[in-house]
Structure formats: C-alpha cells, structure tokens
C-alpha cells in the first residue's frame, strides 16, 4: 500500500510545476506505470483523489498508461516483450537480458489551465 506515498510524491511534483507556470487549475496528470513497477493503478487513483480533496488540486485526475515489460538481449541484439514473466530471450535463449522498459513510474506530463 505504498500508493499513498507515491500519490504524495506526484502531488508535490505537480504543485512545483503548477507554480512555475502560474497555473490557475490542474486538469489532468499523465502517469506511466510499468507492468513490473509494483504499483496498482486503481489504488493510486484512489489515493490521489483522497489526498487532493479540499486542496487546489481538487477536480484534477490521473491519466494512467501502462507499459509492457520489454527486454534487450545483448547476445542476439533482439528486443522482445516479456510474456508470462519469462525474462529469457525468446529468440536465442540468452539469459543475460536487460530490462529496457516495464519498471517505469513516471510523470509524463501535466494538463494545466493558465
């Protein structure tokens, strides 16, 4: 249940950015969450709504996009999507794969009103 702590981090970043552009209102915050980030989107959404109630961010919402787990295999050079948590390269069977996406927990952007 660390979604509450993550929601707090998001709100802090949104407030900082809103202050920089003198935003009058925040409409939407775009978030990117990887399949392996260990964050439950519904839970994050719930925590965000709960914390912003009664603050200047009330009425804003999260727009969450999920990303697949993708690995790169240095042995054969192929990037592949991880299915069923198999991190072994499906092309050559290489086991020394690097995860190139799937653990993201990013703020992509913010939709403000001036």
């Amino acid at each position, binding site marked *: 249940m*660390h979604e509450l702590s993550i929601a707090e981090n998001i709100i802090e*970043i949104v407030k900082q950015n809103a202050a920089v552009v003198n935003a009058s209102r925040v409409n939407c915050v775009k978030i990117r969450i990887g399949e392996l980030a260990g964050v439950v989107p519904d839970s994050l959404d719930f925590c965000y709504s709960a914390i912003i109630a009664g603050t200047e961010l009330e009425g804003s919402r999260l727009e969450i996009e999920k990303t697949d787990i993708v690995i790169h295999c240095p042995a054969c050079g192929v990037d592949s999507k991880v299915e069923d948590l198999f*991190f072994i390269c499906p092309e050559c069977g290489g086991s020394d794969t690097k995860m190139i996406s799937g653990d993201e927990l*990013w703020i992509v952007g913010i*939709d403000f009103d001036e």
Partner: protein
Amino acid sequence: MPIVRIERKVLQKNDDIAALNRVLLRKKRVFAINLVSSPGSGKTSLLEKTIAELKGKMNLAVIEGDVQTDLDAQRIARLNVPVVQIVTNGACHLEAKLVQDALVKIDLADIDLLIIENVGNLVCPAAYDLGEAMKVVVASTTEGDDKPLKYPAMFRNASVLIINKMDLVPYLNCRVDLLKENAMRINPGLLVFETSCSTGSGIREWSQWLLTNIG
C-alpha cells in the same frame, strides 16, 4: 494550454537521496545489503545466524526497519553489533531518507558490511532504492513455491535469493526446485542459497560468500 511534458520519475526525490547514501557508503568502503522478504520469512533469524558466523571476520552494522517496536533491534543488540532501529509508524517500506538519517548514527569508518533489514513486505520495498549495493530477497519454504510469480519485481531486482526454512520441506507442499525455477525465469542471474536457521544448514555457505565477495 497544451500538456506540459515533464518526463520525470515520480520517486526522483527518493532516488536522489539514495544516490547520496550510495556515495557515502562507497566512500567509507561499506558494502550495504537491502534485505527484503514477506513478514515471517526469517530475516532477523538469518541475520542473527549470519552475524554469529561472521563475528571476528568482518565488522557488521545493522539497520532494522519495522512498522512498530524495536524488538528486532533488541535481538541484534544482544550480539554486540551496532544497530539502529527505524520505526516507520505504519509505512510499509523503508525510504532513502530514513536510511540517510540512520546512517548518521553509525560510525561507518569501522564497518565492512551494513545489512538493512527492510519492513516485511514483498511489494512496496521493491520501488524504493535505499542506496544499497544489492538487494537480497529471502523466501521461506512455508510461503510456497509460487511467490516469485506473484511478486516478480522483488525477485527481478534482487541479486541473491535465500530460500529459508529448508528443514520444514518434508512437511510442506512447497517444491524447492519449482520455487527456484520460478525465481530464475524472472531473474536468470539470481544467486541462490538454501538455509535453515533451526539446523544452521547453509548459513556457512552464505556467510562464506559474503566474506569472499565483500571488501
């Protein structure tokens, strides 16, 4: 107004402090392990056995993370090892700032190995870098062989897997080979030890590995 693109990590603030912790630990030549598992897997017992095995061979310090109580710190303090208790008061994981504050209370100049025992939780601690050199995940046989598949992030981020409570295998349905297989498909580079804190099996191998690979 168009969407302002930010493209930054939500937990950047935590990661920045973790980076400072990492620099400090490296400068002081301290190898730090972030010990993670579900509650009741035997992290503290494993720690006690490891300390007993390594005492006199290297200098250890421990940071204990718990939601409540300093019971674990009391257990470690009995072994005459420097220990700092972090009580998170409800939070389900340690964050880099808490570790940063705890590091001030330890004389790092004398320490070779720092073990940070995280809050028992296989989900949340995976997201928070503390500045450690590696994560060690403990999975006990009583938890079953499917835990790596249910909590993949933790097993993907760890460098070492310790399968604990091996003495109970005859009484359980847990298949240790399947547990290992499940962990290795998520993280093929995972190094695996099998231990029992009741019989002491495997503790020497794990401790020997620490001695050989740290410092």
